[in-house]
């Protein structure tokens, strides 16, 4: 077992990997991607704040129709129209 030898300290500071900068950029890019994903695919949740209107719940659980609640349109409306 050998301890690290305290040798002459090389001038590494300038070429050291700038990890924290890299990680900060990654976190920012990641959050941007997540919130873009939210905007694109999850921006109109049926259950906002984990509740939905009671008639819809009753329709889902007690209704007799095969597909009681009309599906949410995959097109998310004006905010997703990139041509505007």
């Amino acid at each position, binding site marked *: *077992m050998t301890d690290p030898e305290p040798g002459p300290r090389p001038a590494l500071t300038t070429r050291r990997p700038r990890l924290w900068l890299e990680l900060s950029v990654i976190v920012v890019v990641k959050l941007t991607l*997540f919130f873009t*994903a939210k905007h694109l695919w999850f921006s109109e949740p049926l259950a906002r704040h*984990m509740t939905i209107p009671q008639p819809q719940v009753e329709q889902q659980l007690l209704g007799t129709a095969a597909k009681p609640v009309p599906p*949410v349109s995959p097109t998310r409306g004006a905010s997703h129209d990139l041509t505007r």
Partner: protein
Amino acid sequence: MISPDDVVTLSRLQFALTAMFHFLFVPLTLGLSWILVICEAAYVMTGRQVYQDMTRFWGKLFGINFAMGVATGLTLEFQFGTNWAYYSHYVGDIFGVPLAIEGMMAFFLESTFIGLFFFGWNRLSPVKHLMVTTLLALGTNLSALWILIANAWMQNPVGAEFNYHTMRMELVSLSEVFFNPVAQAKFVHTVAAGYVTGAMFVLGISAFYLLRARDTGFAIRSFAIAAGFGLAASLSVIVLGDESGYTTGEVQKVKLAAIEAEWETHPAPAGLTLFGLPNQAEERTDYAVKVPYALGLIATRSVDEPVIGIKDLKRNHDLRIRRGMKAYEALVKLKAGDRSDAVLLQFEQHKADLGFGLLLKKYTPRVVDATEAQIAQAVSDTIPQVAPLFWAFRGMVGLGFLFLFIFGASFWYLARKQLAPRRWLLRLCVVAIPLPWVAAELGWFVAEYGRQPWTISGILPTHLSVSSIEASQVWTSLLGIGAIYLGLFVVEMYLMLKYIRLGPASLGTGRYHGEATTA
């Protein structure tokens, strides 16, 4: 095979993908945080620079993992409202508290202390910095507790009851939710699995440096800490896994029977099927290799309590579905405005089985008019596919014992100063680095797949939990999230491998492998 327009299966797949990806980061954070505490405590006690370097280097890998993993669970929350609206409505009153506490833990406690950990080395005294590291470890572990409390409630929904006025489960006892026996067993088993992951990570990378004969003083100390911590953690994960299995046997008898492929209720104490080929169509296990009495002793901790087999459980479910039909009938009348005593009594008498009645919605929208064949189909649905659970569980347990062997052998040879010639062991340590993740994901698969066909056990069937959305929507978000996560995984692996290759030289202290030559 997944049907391309099956919203339920696609939503499950998306949630599973997201949760399993998120859980790639969690166990390493849990385990590595305590290894940092041990390294830094050694530095504070001995004053030796190498222990501070160890804390900083492993802390750097901890930081990469933390940064890559933070917020990867956010997409789960996005899915709750969009894909799982009825589930969200049903559980909203119960999930709010633990999720809010978890959010505060994760964003305030962890974020504060992780900042102090990385940027406080030159600003805090060694003892104060050690306190910061300890609080960071406590924070990361405690934030896991709240999520597991929420998950445990889905497995064993205690402390809540259905309110037909609001059509959702409502909190009756917060303490019952917090002290849910499933939550306690799940928490300790999960964090112990995280400790194994952290220990194997450090052990394997240290073994890699030892095989390359580089930074041996640093590596051997890291190896020693990982071997000791990992040995304790792997023993804990086995013992606590046994506790988790016992709790499952108490409150999730279907899951236990499926895991063990117990089709019949055998006289107590039941034998344990080590291996075999579960045959769901014929309800038997072909070529079963059994250990007499073992399952009964493990699962019930008694010699006279039987482990209920799948066939008997199905008979019980048949009765519960029929009672659930009565609950459903009464609920429909209540919602139509009939609050007569007879209807209220009928609902009160059968409401515990309402969820079983709801299983019939898959086959007949009116439920109360279900035929015998439809009831039989619903009964069959109450049993998840046995073979995947049987093998996943055995895979997890087998890996658990492999970890015990690796940590035990490492600790033994290190203590006897015979590690260096055991290159096979060092190579095994390197190869085993990814295996704790495999075990953890298998464990989650057993927990979640074994809960089917429910999102909330016995209360809300999975097929009624999803929103009325179109399959194309789920496909688009599934592929999009998959692409994002694949990209994140590639970046994580790139950064991890880059800093592992650099080793402690990445600290730029001038004391480690390769630094002098590059000066």
